[in-house]
C-alpha cells in the first residue's frame, strides 16, 4: 500500500467502520479489518471478531468499488450563458489514479460489467473513463463465502481469474499464516519485485488454489445462471411476481448496493444570483437512480411501471435476463448484496429459481431468516 501511495495512487480498501465493512481511503495495512468475520443471510449482515488474525476473513458489506468510479453524486459539467450563446466546462479530473485493495472476484467482474455499459464504444462516459483509467487492482481470493453468495452460478469463482494486477490469497495451514501474492499484469509483477517478498513456493501456490477450491465447494447457493435468460422468457404473468410484490417495499436498497446497477438521473441546477439578476450558470449533475422509483420510466408523463410487481419484475429480469441482450454480459455477478441488504429479506436466488421453474436453492446453512432484529 505504501509503495502504491508512493507511486501516486489514491489507495482505497476495506475498513471496519460503524459495525460494517466499508471501503475508504487507507493509510497502511494496519487499517485493514483484522480478525473479522461476517455473517450474512437474507435481510441480515453482522460483523463478528475472532482471534484468527486473518486479514480477509470477512465478506463485503454494502459498499462496492462502483462508488469510486461511478459516484452516487457527481458534477457532470457547467453551462455558462454568454452573449448570444453558452460555453460548457467540465469539472477537473481526479488528481490521482485509484488503487483498490482487496477486491473480490465478484467485484472485479462487476467492474467489467459496468465498463460494458458506461464505456460503450458509441458514447463512452468521459468522467467514468478518466476515473477508471489505470485503476490498480489488488484482488483477493474469497476464502469464506457468505451464506448469500452465489458467484459460481453467475460465471465467477471465489478466485479472480482476470482483471487484476495482483492477486492475494490468504492461506492459514500447518505451514503458517501467510498471504500468497501472484501478479496479473506487468505493473503488478513490477510491484511485487519491488517489495522483495519471499518467492512463493509450489506448495504455497497449491495451498492458495486449495483455499479457492474449498470456497467454491462450500458455495451455499447454486443456480444455472447461464440458463436464466432463456428460462425467464414468458414469465411475465407468473404468479410469483405478485407474491414478491406483497413483501417488496419498493425501497430500492437492492439497486443501491448492487455493484453493477447503473441507472441514474441527470439534473440541471440553476442557482439564484445574489443581486437578483438573471442566472447565467447551470450545473448539470448525475445521481444514482433506481428502477424502483415510480417515475423512473414514464411515457407522456405517466409512470410506465405503476405497481411494485412491475418494478420488481423490471429489476429482476433486467439483472438476470435482458441485460445480456443489452450489453452482452449478465447484469448479476452473484455477490448476494441485494439479498443481504433487502429489509424484507427477499432472496434473488430463490425468486429466480421459482420463476425459472428450477428447484429452489437450498436455504443458506446459517440462515436466520425472520430472526433479524
Amino acid at each position, binding site marked *: 500500500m505504501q509503495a502504491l501511495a508512493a507511486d501516486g495512487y489514491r489507495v482505497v480498501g476495506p475498513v471496519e467502520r460503524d459495525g460494517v465493512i466499508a471501503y475508504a481511503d487507507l493509510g497502511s495495512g494496519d487499517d485493514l479489518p483484522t480478525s473479522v468475520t461476517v455473517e450474512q443471510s437474507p435481510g441480515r449482515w453482522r460483523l463478528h471478531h475472532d482471534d484468527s488474525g486473518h486479514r480477509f476473513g470477512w465478506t463485503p458489506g454494502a459498499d462496492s468499488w462502483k462508488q469510486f468510479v461511478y459516484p452516487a453524486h457527481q458534477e457532470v459539467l457547467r453551462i455558462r450563458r454568454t452573449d448570444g450563446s453558452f460555453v460548457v466546462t467540465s469539472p477537473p479530473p481526479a488528481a490521482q489514479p485509484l488503487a483498490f485493495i482487496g477486491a473480490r472476484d465478484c467485484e472485479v467482474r462487476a467492474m467489467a460489467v459496468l465498463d460494458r455499459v458506461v464505456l460503450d464504444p458509441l458514447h463512452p462516459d468521459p468522467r467514468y473513463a478518466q476515473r477508471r483509467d489505470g485503476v490498480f487492482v489488488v484482488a483477493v481470493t474469497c476464502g469464506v463465502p457468505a451464506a448469500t453468495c452465489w458467484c459460481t452460478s453467475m460465471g465467477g469463482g471465489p478466485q479472480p481469474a482476470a482483471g487484476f494486477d495482483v492477486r492475494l490469497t490468504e492461506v492459514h495451514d500447518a505451514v503458517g499464516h501467510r498471504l500468497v501474492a501472484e501478479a496479473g499484469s506487468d505493473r503488478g509483477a513490477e510491484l511485487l519485485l519491488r517489495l522483495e517478498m519471499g518467492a512463493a513456493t509450489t506448495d504455497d501456490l497449491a495451498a492458495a488454489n486449495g483455499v479457492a477450491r474449498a470456497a467454491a465447494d462450500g458455495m451455499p447457493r447454486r443456480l444455472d445462471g447461464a440458463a436464466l435468460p432463456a428460462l425467464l422468457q414468458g414469465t411475465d404473468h407468473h404468479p410469483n411476481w405478485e407474491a414478491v410484490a406483497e413483501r417488496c417495499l419498493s425501497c430500492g436498497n437492492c439497486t443501491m448496493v448492487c455493484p453493477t446497477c447503473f441507472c441514474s438521473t441527470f439534473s440541471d441546477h440553476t442557482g439564484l444570483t445574489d443581486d437578483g439578476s438573471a442566472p447565467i450558470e447551470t450545473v448539470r449533475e448525475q445521481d444514482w437512480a433506481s428502477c424502483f422509483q415510480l417515475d423512473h420510466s414514464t*411515457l*407522456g*408523463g*405517466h409512470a410506465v411501471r405503476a405497481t411494485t410487481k412491475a418494478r420488481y419484475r423490471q429489476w429482476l429480469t433486467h439483472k438476470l435476463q435482458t441485460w445480456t441482450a443489452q450489453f452482452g454480459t449478465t447484469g448479476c455477478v452473484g455477490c448476494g448484496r441485494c439479498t443481504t441488504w433487502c429489509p424484507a429479506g427477499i432472496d434473488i436466488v430463490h425468486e429466480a429459481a421459482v420463476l425459472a421453474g428450477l428447484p429452489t436453492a437450498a436455504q443458506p446453512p446459517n440462515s436466520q431468516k425472520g430472526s433479524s432484529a
Partner: protein
Amino acid sequence: MNEIRDALASHPFFSGLDERGLATLAAFTFVRDVPAGEWIARTGAHADVFHAVVHGRAGIEIHAADREPLVVATVHTGEVIGWSWFMEPHRWHFDVIALDAMRMLDLDAAQLRAACAADHELGFHVADQLTRVLAARLEATRHQLVDIYGIAR
C-alpha cells in the same frame, strides 16, 4: 334483375354469397342515387332499409343541444351504413348524411331479416359481416374515447 345481382355480388359485404343467396337478396334490393347533402337516416326514425354504399361518402353524425353536430365516422365505397335495421327496436341511433353524391344498394330490412331467419347460411353471412363492421367501429370508438392524440389523462 341481373344488374342488381351483379351489383350485390361485387359489393364486399355480399361477396362470397352463393347464387341462391344473391337471388334471394336481389328480389328486395333497389339501386338509389342520393345527392350530396341529403339525409339517409335520422335519429329515432324507423330503420327499415339496409344501405350498402356503391360509391360516395356518407357521414355518421351525432348531435346534441350543447354542441355543434359532429361527424364521428364516415362510410365509404364498399362499406355499409349501420346495423340498427338488424336488431329491435329497428330505429336509427344516429343521423346519416350524404357528404358526396352517392349510389347505394337499398335492401328492404324486414324482408332481409325474414330471409336471414329462413336461410341460416345467408343469415350467418350477414351476421358475420355485420360483426366485422361492429368490431372495427368498436375499436375506433375506443380510440376516440381515450382521445389518443390528446394529452394522456
